[in-house]
C-alpha cells in the first residue's frame, strides 16, 4: 500500500476524535474478559478452604487431588476449542479418548498376531497419536470434501468408534499397563519438579495453543474461517485446508488425552471417555468459546476447565452423596454458565 495517498483532492479534515480517554482502557478490559472466570474460581477456592482449612490450599491437594484429574479434560477442551473456533463440531473426540489408546495398547500387549503384533512397547505413543489424527483425517474428509454436517458425521463416528472399542477390548478392561508398557508408566507417574508430567503436558499444550491461536497465520485463519468462511476464502485463506487441519490436530490431542487417562488409571476400560464430551462442551462454553465459531480464547477455556474441576471437588468436600453428585453437577454447570454470562458480559452462542 502506498505511504501517502494524494487523492485527487486534499484530504478531508481529520474527524473530531470520537474516542474518550477510556477507549484505551476498554481495549485492555476486552482482554481481561478472558479472565472473567477468575473471580468465581477465587470464590470456590475460598469456599473450599472454609470446608477443609487444613489441607485445601496446599499445593499437594490442589495438584494431586484437583488439577491432576482435570488434565485429560483440559486437553480435550483444547482440542474441541480448535474445532469450535473454526466453526465446526467434533463429538467423536470422546470416543477417540478410548479407541486410540485401546488400539495402540492392543497392538502391544493384546492377545493377537494381527498386523504383526505384538509390536514393541515404544510404539504406544506414536500409534495413539497417529490413530487419533487418522480419525481426524476421516472426519475432515467427510466434512470438508463431501460437505456433510460436522455434527452428524462426528456423532456417527462417535458411535462407530465406541462399537469398535468394545470389540477390541471385549467388554473387559486391559489393565496392569504400568508394569507392561514403560511409556504409560512414565506418563502416569513421572514427576518434574514434583509436578506430575500430565500437568506439564497440559501447560505446554495450552502455552503452544495460545501462541498458535493468537500469533500465527494458522491460528488467526481459524478465527477468520469460523467468523466468515466466504470472506476468508476471498482473502486467499485455504478454508478447506484450515478446517481439515483443525480436525486432525483435535484428533491427535484427544488421543493424547486418552493415553494420559489410561496412564493415570493404568488400564484401558471398554467405556473409557464415555460421556466426557458433555463436560468438554460445558467447559468450553463457560470459558467463552462460541458454538457459532470464530470466537473464544484458550485462556478462557482453561479457566472453564479449572472452574468445573474445582466445583466437583468442592461438591465432594461438601459431602454431596455420590448418587446425587451427577444431578448436582448438572445444576452447577447451569449455574456456572449463568455466572460466566454475567461476569463476562458477553452473550454465549
Amino acid at each position, binding site marked *: *500500500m*502506498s*505511504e*501517502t*495517498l*494524494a*487523492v*485527487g*483532492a*486534499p*484530504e*478531508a*479534515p481529520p*474527524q*473530531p476524535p*470520537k*474516542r*474518550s480517554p*477510556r*477507549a484505551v482502557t*476498554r*481495549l485492555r478490559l*476486552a482482554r481481561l474478559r478472558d479472565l472473567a472466570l477468575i473471580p468465581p474460581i477465587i470464590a470456590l477456592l475460598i469456599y473450599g478452604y472454609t470446608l477443609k482449612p487444613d489441607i485445601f490450599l496446599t499445593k499437594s491437594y490442589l495438584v494431586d487431588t484437583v488439577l491432576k484429574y482435570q488434565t485429560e479434560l483440559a486437553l480435550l477442551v483444547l482440542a474441541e476449542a480448535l474445532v469450535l473456533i473454526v466453526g465446526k463440531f467434533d463429538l467423536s473426540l470422546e470416543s477417540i479418548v478410548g479407541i486410540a489408546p485401546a488400539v495402540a495398547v492392543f497392538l502391544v500387549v493384546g492377545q493377537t498376531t494381527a498386523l504383526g503384533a505384538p509390536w514393541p512397547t515404544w510404539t504406544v505413543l506414536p500409534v495413539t497419536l497417529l490413530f487419533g489424527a487418522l480419525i481426524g483425517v476421516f472426519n475432515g474428509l467427510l466434512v470438508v470434501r463431501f460437505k456433510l454436517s460436522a455434527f452428524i458425521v462426528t456423532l456417527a463416528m462417535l458411535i462407530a468408534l465406541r462399537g469398535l472399542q468394545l470389540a477390541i477390548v471385549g467388554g473387559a478392561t486391559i489393565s496392569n499397563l504400568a508394569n507392561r508398557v514403560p511409556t504409560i508408566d512414565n506418563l502416569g507417574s513421572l514427576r518434574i519438579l514434583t509436578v506430575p508430567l500430565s500437568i506439564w503436558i497440559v501447560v505446554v499444550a495450552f502455552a503452544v495453543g495460545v501462541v498458535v491461536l*493468537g*500469533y*500465527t*497465520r*494458522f*491460528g*488467526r*485463519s481459524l*478465527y*477468520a474461517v469460523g*467468523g*466468515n468462511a*466466504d*470472506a*476468508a*476464502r*476471498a*482473502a*486467499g*485463506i*485455504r478454508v478447506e485446508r484450515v478446517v481439515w487441519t483443525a480436525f486432525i490436530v483435535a484428533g491427535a490431542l484427544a488421543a493424547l488425552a486418552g493415553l494420559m487417562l489410561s496412564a493415570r488409571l493404568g488400564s484401558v476400560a471398554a467405556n473409557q471417555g464415555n460421556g466426557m464430551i458433555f463436560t468438554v462442551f460445558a467447559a468450553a462454553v463457560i470459558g467463552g468459546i462460541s458454538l457459532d465459531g*470464530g*470466537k473464544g480464547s484458550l485462556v478462557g477455556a482453561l479457566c472453564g476447565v479449572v472452574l468445573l474441576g474445582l466445583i466437583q471437588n468442592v461438591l465432594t468436600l461438601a459431602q454431596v452423596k455420590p448418587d446425587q453428585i451427577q444431578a448436582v453437577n448438572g445444576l452447577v454447570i447451569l449455574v456456572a454458565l449463568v455466572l460466566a454470562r454475567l461476569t463476562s458480559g458477553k452473550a454465549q452462542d
Partner: protein
Amino acid sequence: MAEDGSTPLVEAVGIAKRFGPTVALADGNLTVLPGETHALVGRNGAGKSTLVGVLTGLLRADAGEVRFGGRPAPPLGDRVAWRRHVACVYQKPSVVGDLSVAENLFLDRQPRGRWGLLSPPRLRRAATELLDSWSVPVDPDVPAKELTVEQRQLVEIAGALSHGARFVILDEPTAQLEARAIARLFDRLADLKKQGVTFLFISHHLPEIYQICQRVTVFRDARHIVTAPVAEMDHARLVEAMIGEARGLVQVGHDRPSVPPDTAPVLTLEAVGVPAVAEPVDLTVRRGEIVGVAGSVASGKRELAEAVVGLRPRTGRILVGGRPVRAASVPAALRGGIGYLPADRNSDGFVPGLSVAENATMTVADRLGPFGVVLPGRRDARGRRAIADLDVHTAGPRQPVGELSGGNAQKVVMARALARDPQVLVLVQPTVGVDVRSKESLLGVVDEETRRGRGALLVSDEIDDLRVCDRVLVMVAGRIVAEHTRGWDEAVLVAEIEGIGEKDV
C-alpha cells in the same frame, strides 16, 4: 392523528447513543411530517443507522425521546406496539431465508385453521392477498433466500405495512439495486405515498433525494446539522452540510493521463469464460489503466470478476504481468498479483468478529512475521496505516469490523484488497454504501494507484465509478457488446447496459 401537518408523525429529540467508547449519536433530532418522504443523509458513521435503531425500538437510547403522533413511544419490550407505528427495511436483509415468503410475512401471527393449528392454505391466501394489495409481484411460496434484493425489499415493505404502520424507514434501499430496479422502487414508493404512507429515506446517492424527497435532514459527526425542504438545499449546500466545509467535491479522474495503446498489458484475459454464465471474453488492462466493466446484475460481470480472482472455475488463460495465473485458486491469484474487492462486503468482504487491522491484513498474513508467525505490532501498524490512508472512521485498529458503519466496513475491505501491493486490482461495486466524500477518496485511491503503473478492472454499474475509467466495456448476457473510451455519453451507456442499445447496433 392530525393530518394538517402541524403534529409531526414521528419526532426524535436529543437522541444520544454510545457504544463503549464510540459516540454513535450525540444529538439526534428528526421531525417527520405526515405524508412526506423525508431524506436522512450524512457521511459514513454519522449515526443514521443508529437513529433508525432507536426509531424502530431496537436500540435503547442513552438520552432523548421518541414520539409518534405527539405521544411518547411505547416501552421497548412491546414489539407489537412499535410495529404498529414504524417499520423498516434495514441495511442488511432481515428475512428468514429458508422460510417461504408467506411464512416470512406472517411470522408469529400465522392465520389459524381448525383446532387452532396453522393452516397452510389460509396462510397462502392471506399472503397472496397482502402481496396483491400492495401490487408486489412475488410468489408467496418461494423461499425468501431466492428473492432478488428488489423483491426482498418489496416483501419487507408489504410485511411492514400489514402490521398497520404507515411510517416506513428505508435504510439505503438503493445501494444494491441497479438503475431499472431503482426506478421501479421509486414508482412503488410514489404509489404508496399517494395512499398515505410516510417514508424516511436514507441514501448516499444525492440525486435520489431530489427525485423523491420533500425535506432533508443532515447529520454530521453524530449530530443534527440542518433540516430543510430539498428545494432550499441545492447539491452544493447539501454536500457542504454533510462534510462540514464549503469546498465541494471534485470529479476524480478528470485529469488522468491517457495510456498509450502500446503500453505493456498488466492483465490479459484470453478467451476467459465462466461456464453457464459468461462466454469467452478477451480483455486487456494496460499498466496505468482503469478498465470499467459495466452491466446489469444478469450480465455476468460479477461472475467474470470472481472467475478472474479464482473464486469460480473458468476456461481460458489469464496473465498478470505476462505470467499465467492458475485457475480456481484464490491464493494463486493473490500471489500472481491480483487484489480483489468483492461485491457484497457482508457476505464475503469481512469477518465481523475480527479487528479492523486483522481484516485489513488478511491477504498479507504471510508478511506479518517470520515462519507463519503474526506479530500483532506489525499487524496493528499496518492497520493504522490503512485507517489513515483510507480515512476509516473507527475507534482504532483493534475494533471489530462488525461494529463499524457500512461504508467504513467497505473501506476496510478496500484496504484488504490493496494490502498485497497488487499489480492489478479487481474491484466489484467498490463504492456501494459509501458516502460522497469517501467515494471520492476511494476512487481517488484507485486513480492514484493506477498512476503508478498498476492496472484496475472496475466492475460496476454506478455511473460515478465508471467516470474514473479510461475505457468502459459493456457486458450484456455474458458477452461484451460495446467498448467506450473516456468521454462516453451517459444515456448511451445506460441504454446499452440495459440491453436496449443491443438491438439497434
